[in-house]
């Protein structure tokens, strides 16, 4: 029997290789397609189960079992997602290995079997011209196709948008009410934040009454029971007075009509759950959930609570945004008030110990809640409020925390200068007057600091310091010449703004937690036991009026127009000329 040897096809091994790599690439490609679809459909951010659980948690925020379930699901979803991504990456690399083998094999097979070119037929020099004639028709068809396509897209029906000034005016007039531009004058005639429009506890334009009588209701425009508890001070804007209040169950912001004392709206905060694992930090009762004064940019009112919830409401009470900064690690509870600059919200969120780096300065876009910057501060807990002021035409923000007063560029959050001058538990807030920053180191020193320095200005920019009757809770108040402080024990002291020389002091022998405030050349004082005192804001001590009110004052007053707004422990008061209102829950003045 003769064995006939089959002639080996030189391309056979490449064909086999091509088939193998082809099957490999096809199978792998299909697996990758399925995997790609899975990564899209199983994106942990869009898990319907997780979303549903989160909604349930919002309705029942204390459901610990639900929280554990959410964390477990979130972890498993993310782990699954990243495993899938890792597998996909491995698959892509394998495919990148397989495809060149497939291509190379195919090319080898074709190269082995390629026949040398054999030009066929006679060449006709006119043939390119005939081809061009067909090509012209193809170009014409292409042009027609494009014209039809563009016409189709154009006639999709895009609604015309305003182009001229007139059209813009018309569009704005027919739509939602246009937000009024905020002017400096609007700001000055309001009380938009703790410490007032100028940041020195004074109003340059208000003319509140120098006298009032609660028994007769004279110059008491209205008073209403406080809708919710809280130590925060009132702010006022555009005929509305804003407060916050809260308890463990509910945190809210409410607005009262300045003229009538009628509650315009009260809106509960619906901040998302706290970031990170649940903590069991207690909110101290002594400060409560709402010790921080609200602030407004003229379009929104902002509130922060001791549990770290931060919320913004439109002036009609609708929620603009809310977020949760987490319960601050603060032994007395977070108490720094909010402040604003233009459309930005400034939050001093100091907590913990200096070396922990937990403290932060946040600049937030008021309308959206977008964090513009968040600067970590190597400082511990503080209870003072941030001071926004302008120096050299640039916005600055001064923050106090032991042992430094630190000023930052408000636009960028970069630190500009610091002065080592603070001791104790920093509660009095800094104020700004006549181009100088004044800070009180509790029961220690009152200091005046020039704000134009850079770096450590402790030895170069502290203009003067005074050590008499320095407050430990209240913030100073100042006009263009004098600065006034009141200690918790009731020592009111007047200093010259320029050199810090004490002008006079007076002991009222009653406790004060509310800061003094100045309007129309008068200082207004409200004690914890309801004593109200009005004095001349001058170089001589001159008492104008004193009365006993049926309330206890811890919050500082606010001035707007002809009125003083007060928040007592039980009532909210509006002192000023006008007929007493009897709307809503307002009680007749003088009859608590």
């Amino acid at each position: 029997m003769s064995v006939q040897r089959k002639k080996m096809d030189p391309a056979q091994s490449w064909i086999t290789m091509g088939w193998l790599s082809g099957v490999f690439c096809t199978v792998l490609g299909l697996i990758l397609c399925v995997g790609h679809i899975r990564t899209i459909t199983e994106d942990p951010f869009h898990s319907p189960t997780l979303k549903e659980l989160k909604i349930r948690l919002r309705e029942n925020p204390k459901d610990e079992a639900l929280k554990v379930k959410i964390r477990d699901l979130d972890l498993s979803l993310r782990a699954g997602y990243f495993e899938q991504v890792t597998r996909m990456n491995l698959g892509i690399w394998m495919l990148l290995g397989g495809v060149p083998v497939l291509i190379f094999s195919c090319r080898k097979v074709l190269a082995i079997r390629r026949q040398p070119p054999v030009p066929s037929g006679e060449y006709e020099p006119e043939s390119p011209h005939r081809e061009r004639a067909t090509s012209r028709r193809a170009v014409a068809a292409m042009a027609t196709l494009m014209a039809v396509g563009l016409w189709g897209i154009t006639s999709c029906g895009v609604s015309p948008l305003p182009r001229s000034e007139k059209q813009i005016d018309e569009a704005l007039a027919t739509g939602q009410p246009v937000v009024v531009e905020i002017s400096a004058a609007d700001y000055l005639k309001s009380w938009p934040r703790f410490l007032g429009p100028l940041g020195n506890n004074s109003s340059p334009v208000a003319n509140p009454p120098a006298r009032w009588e609660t028994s007769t209701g004279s110059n008491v425009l209205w008073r209403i029971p406080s809708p919710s508890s809280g130590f925060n001070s009132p702010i006022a804007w555009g005929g509305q007075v804003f407060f916050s209040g809260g308890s463990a169950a509910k945190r809210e912001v409410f607005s009262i009509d300045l003229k009538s004392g009628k509650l315009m709206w009260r809106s509960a905060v619906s901040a998302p759950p706290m970031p990170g694992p649940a903590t069991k930090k207690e909110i101290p009762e002594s400060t409560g959930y709402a010790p921080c004064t609200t602030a407004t940019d003229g379009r929104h009112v902002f509130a922060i609570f001791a549990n770290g919830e931060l919320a913004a409401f439109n002036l009609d009470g609708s929620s603009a945004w809310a977020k949760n900064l987490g319960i601050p690690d603060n032994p007395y509870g977070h108490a720094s008030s909010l402040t604003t600059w233009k459309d930005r919200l400034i939050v001093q969120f100091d907590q913990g110990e200096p070396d922990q780096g937990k403290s932060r300065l946040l600049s937030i876009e008021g309308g959206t809640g977008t964090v513009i910057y968040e600067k970590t501060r190597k400082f511990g807990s503080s209870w003072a409020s941030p001071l926004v002021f302008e120096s050299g035409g640039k916005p600055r923000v001064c923050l106090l925390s032991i042992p430094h007063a630190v000023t930052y560029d408000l636009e960028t959050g970069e630190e500009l200068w610091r002065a080592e001058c603070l001791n104790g538990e920093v509660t009095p807030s800094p104020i700004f007057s006549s181009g100088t920053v004044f800070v009180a180191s509790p029961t220690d020193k009152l200091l005046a600091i020039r704000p134009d320095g850079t770096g450590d200005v402790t030895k170069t920019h502290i203009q003067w310091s005074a050590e008499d009757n320095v407050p430990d809770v209240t913030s100073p108040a100042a006009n263009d010449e004098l600065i006034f402080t009141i200690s918790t024990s009731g020592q009111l002291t007047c200093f010259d703004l320029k050199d810090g020389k004490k002008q006079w002091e007076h002991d009222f022998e009653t406790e004060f937690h509310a800061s003094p405030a100045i309007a129309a050349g008068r200082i207004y004082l409200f004690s914890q036991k309801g004593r109200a005192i009005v004095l001349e804001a001058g170089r001589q001590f001159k008492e104008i009026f004193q009365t006993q009110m049926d309330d206890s004052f811890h919050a500082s007053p606010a001035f707007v127009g002809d009125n003083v707004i007060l928040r007592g422990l039980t009532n909210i008061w509006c002192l000023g000329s006008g007929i007493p209102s009897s709307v809503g829950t307002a009680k007749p003045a003088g009859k608590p």
Partner: protein
Amino acid sequence: MTTPGPRAAYWEYVDSLVLATALGTALWLIYTRRSRRGLIALSIFSLIYFGFYRKGCICSIGSVQNLAMALFDNGYAAPVSAIAFFALPVAVALFSGRAFCSGVCPHGALQDLILVKPLKVPTWLEQGLSVLPFIYLGAGVLFAATGTTFIICQYDPFVPIFRMSGRTFMVLSGVALLVLGMFVGRPYCRFLCPFGAILKLAGTVSARRVRVTPDLCTQCRLCEASCPFGAMRTPETGRPAPRDLPSERRQLTLALMVTPLLIFAGAWGGLKFSPTAAMLHPSVNLAHEFLANQGKPAPTGALSPADLELQRARQNPRETLVASAKVQHRFDMGTTLFGAWIGLVIGAKWISLRLRRTRTDYEPDRGDCVACARCFDYCPNELVRRGVISPVKEPATTTL
């Protein structure tokens, strides 16, 4: 699509230097070594460096948009690498043809390397589709100059492959184009690439050009079907037959007269296209959303970026509408010019298809040739010149 993170500034210069070196190498391989293998090696290097390592960014194709934006937006300065990646290949093309496309462009390299069995695209289809890169170029410049978006980058089919991630649609487009590219030579380069359009124009007037052989063309026709990219041109007679001459002259005159009309018609159509095109601009889109959502309550809770934009617009409604109006006016001008450009491209193509050329040899088209060096190996004279084969000796003749 995952955008590569920012890199140290000196990398701009490194990339530019690598590009310059690669272009120099390509020129040497095309004109001095006339080496297809060398170009394959260069293509592999470019694919790895500019493609997979640099993840397709920066690339010359997208650099057109950087320059367009820098020209029309005072607040934008084109990076050094963008300028280099635009200018170097164009300068090389002006003097020596499309050396960039031969083995330096990662897009071209990828398509060149995967080409398995090239099929001939009918000439009429090739010519019809050849206007698309110019129109795509116009659209890319329009949207970049108006500060809208870099559409050439956004809809680049190969970048998701280089980055191994991207939107599903673009990944599928890239894969589909690669599969097509196994049988149709460089489909993206020929029928879409906007930078290829610029290089084509530059290559048309280049001082030096790629030839099948620097020696005598014997018109053996062996190279006739050598080019997988449809760039090989056959000999032509420049003059028509006397009986066709008046008719051809009339047709050419008509084409010359129609072109300005096409430009005007395109400009008019472009202006009509303006409101639709402007909607792609973020400012105009925001104004549209703002007006559409007037009176509706603001969303609460965790806001999406679009919600945040809308919230910002609600803070400054006039500013939003004024910004939108400014962009719309810019688009009016831009789309008018874009429409005119389309008209010009169609008209110019029409005229070029009316012209007769005199060509005696088989030679690659100056504009269409991507200098891949495939045709070199088809020419027996070239093979003899390189010593690959021996010249055929003429048999000795005997005289009786």
